[in-house]
């Protein structure tokens, strides 16, 4: 985009760029969650790797994913309310 190299961005170009950046952040965020969840649940559920994922392993993985999300939500809530509390004391 030549206009990016000259005077700078128009406000609509800047808006587009910001939307792209925000989207990238959402994607990176989802990717991170996926990676971590996969690692943690593999560790918890696949103790003796067999020649395929058996049904108990699959059930464990599904449950683990749900619990990881529960954990994520709880951390998010706790952190948010703590931040709010700190702000109120300043």
């Amino acid at each position, binding site marked *: 985009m030549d206009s990016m190299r000259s005077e700078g961005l128009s406000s609509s170009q800047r808006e587009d760029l910001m939307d792209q950046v925000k989207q990238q952040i959402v994607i990176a965020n989802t990717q991170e*969650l996926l990676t971590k969840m996969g690692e943690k649940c593999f560790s918890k*559920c696949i103790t003796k790797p067999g020649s395929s994922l058996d049904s108990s392993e699959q059930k464990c993985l599904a449950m*683990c994913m749900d619990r*990881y999300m529960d*954990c994520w939500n709880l*951390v*998010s809530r706790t*952190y948010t309310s703590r931040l709010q509390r700190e702000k109120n004391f300043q």
Partner: protein
Amino acid sequence: MWFQVLVHELTEKCWDKCMDRPSTRLESRTEGCITNCVQRFIDSTNFVANRLQKVAGQH
């Protein structure tokens, strides 16, 4: 954005410290552990920052 980054980090750390075997729901003992984990992490961060400031001021 940093909020998200920190939540990911904390989730990972607190999961490792608090989660035994995943079950059909988050047990109250686990919930308590995770809540404490988040609060103590923030306390630790503040402690480290404050003490470092003090120590740095002495040199």
